[in-house]
């Protein structure tokens, strides 16, 4: 376990460092100038801006300076949000995405796992067929269709929730539901597949021969193994779902982190692209580590070394 933790930690450092380096150079390779604006600016102003972002220095120098500031925990200033620090942009917007993402995940798990389990237990019956058709619908309906549908019903017709924005305590509900339903559909299908695989195993027949009641066969004998694929999927999905979605944030007009990923790239905001990407990579490495521990705990045959 200790060896596992240490080796994964080293691995994590290498991965994050590689992502940092790749992102740093790739944004600079892309055509376009981060300081270009529609209005002409005075050459002196431009020069001072370039100095501020070290754009007047050579690439290796820029890289070294940025790396140094990251090691000091400083993500630098944004190039497009005038006077804003990247750390501040992230700490302002991430809680929004985190709240919606975690709620979406809870919704997804709460719907997806029971639906998948029931579908597997009642396989090839109308219960299974309707659950899986719903899941297919959930997967195929993109967020930009599902979102407006939910807004039209619960925001405009029933007036239960705001149609958008981030002001009231209930504003997470519709965006979280939109994301949650889509993820629930994936989880239901994964759960069904995992459970079906386990329920066909010989040891389930052994359990029946022992007189174990059907419900206990599902909960005690099948669930642990059947959920392994779901857990393996949820880990990495967690990183994606809690860092926001550009589509959801656009539909619901939310000040979340997801839009910054896209806008920073579009705006050639070199420093913000780097900050958000490194954040995402760190998060992903982190959840993968915990996913591996969880899978090993679920599956006694997996040894953490």
């Amino acid at each position, binding site marked *: 376990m200790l060896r596992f933790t240490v080796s994964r930690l080293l691995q994590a450092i290498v991965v994050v460092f590689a992502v940092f380096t790749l992102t740093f150079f790739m944004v600079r390779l892309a055509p376009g100038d981060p300081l270009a604006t529609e209005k002409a600016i005075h050459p002196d102003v431009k020069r001072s801006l370039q100095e501020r972002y070290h754009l007047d220095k050579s690439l290796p120098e820029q890289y070294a300076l940025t790396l140094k500031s990251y090691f000091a925990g400083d993500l630098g200033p944004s190039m497009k949000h005038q006077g804003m620090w990247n750390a501040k942009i992230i700490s302002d917007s991430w809680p929004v995405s985190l709240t919606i993402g975690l709620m979406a995940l809870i919704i997804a798990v709460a719907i997806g796992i029971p639906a998948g389990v029931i579908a597997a237990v009642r396989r090839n019956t109308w219960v299974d067929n309707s659950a899986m058709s719903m899941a297919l619908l959930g997967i195929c309906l993109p967020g930009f269709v599902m979102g407006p549908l939910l807004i039209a019903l619960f925001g405009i017709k029933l007036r239960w929730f705001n149609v958008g924005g981030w002001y009231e305590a209930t504003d997470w509900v519709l965006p979280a539901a939109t994301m949650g339903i889509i993820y629930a559909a994936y989880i239901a299908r994964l759960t069904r597949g995992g459970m079906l695989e386990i329920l066909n195993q010989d040891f389930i027949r*052994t359990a029946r021969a*022992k007189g*174990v009641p059907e419900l206990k066969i599902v909960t005690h004998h099948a669930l642990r193994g059947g959920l392994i694929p779901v857990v393996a999927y949820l880990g990495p999905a967690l990183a994606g779902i809690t860092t926001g979605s550009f589509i959801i944030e656009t539909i619901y007009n939310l000040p979340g982190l997801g839009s910054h990923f896209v806008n920073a790239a579009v705006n050639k905001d070199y420093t913000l692209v780097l900050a958000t990407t490194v954040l995402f990579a760190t998060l992903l490495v982190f959840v993968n580590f915990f996913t591996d521990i969880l899978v090993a705990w679920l599956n006694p045959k997996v040894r953490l070394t």
Partner: protein
Amino acid sequence: MPLLDVQNLRVAFHTRNGVVRAVTGVSLSVEKGQTVGIVGESGSGKSVTCYSMLGLIPMPPGRIEGGTANFDGVDLLKMSRAELRAIRGRRISMIFQDPMTSLNPYMRVGDQVMEPLRIHEGLCKAEALPKAIAALAEVGIKNPEERVRQYPHEFSGGMRQRVMIAMSMITRPELLIADEPTTALDVTIQKQVLDLIKERQRALGSAVILITHDLAVVSEVCDYVNVMYAGRLVESAPVGELFRNPRHAYTRSLMRSIPALQPKGGTLYTIPGMPPDLAKLGPGCAFRVRNAENGYLCLTDRDPEIIEIAPGHRVQNCPGCLERGNA
């Protein structure tokens, strides 16, 4: 009254490729404490015969089309699912062919061994654990106090079959159904496991149905033998009688193919051809195409009937298969 008395059991699987008549008119009985063998080639319906009585075949596609299976005077086939569940694992328990896949890899061995006690006798974990440890010790597992905390993958195949035996016998069942318990094991371990089953059987006074395709095993451990072919019983007799006086051509072919009884150095005898497709089986003797003795005399227009040829010795009455001479 026999402990188990099966009469005219018929089981079919309604599949996309037709109706597979897996078990057709099988009758057999097991006395208290007796060891009864069911022998036959792969696909002859041995497992389905036993599983269907206990509600362990998938339905659909499986369907029990007729018959009775009286266990201690009550028909298993008429029981509700809950009644049957109360018998499974308590009064009738099972061991399966492949010990590598028959134990739950996600559960500690101790939890699995004590589960029948917890379900059927309502014991809590603290009460059941010492019994599980004792049961493992009785089947020859060393350090049972530590082994109960381990998972199946930490056991060898032979040890896992010992665990299965401990688990299936922990409720002192009146009947143990062992479905090819040694087929998947090393030859050296097969005998140990068979001896262990015998030993536990004697200690608890249980009856055993031993399913196998190995007549040599039958001759060693069984009191009574049922030979199955293509979903039917072709011959059944006390073990000594059957080996002394095999009347059906299929039984004799099976005996000829016991490796230990064949002359050393020669090529091993195997029954020519393949068992028939149970979905396409018409009337007549199912063994006729493979009967090298007098296949041309076999029934083709109607199914052979079972006749009792000597006390306790029953055989399918097909002129091509029945040994003539002393009939």
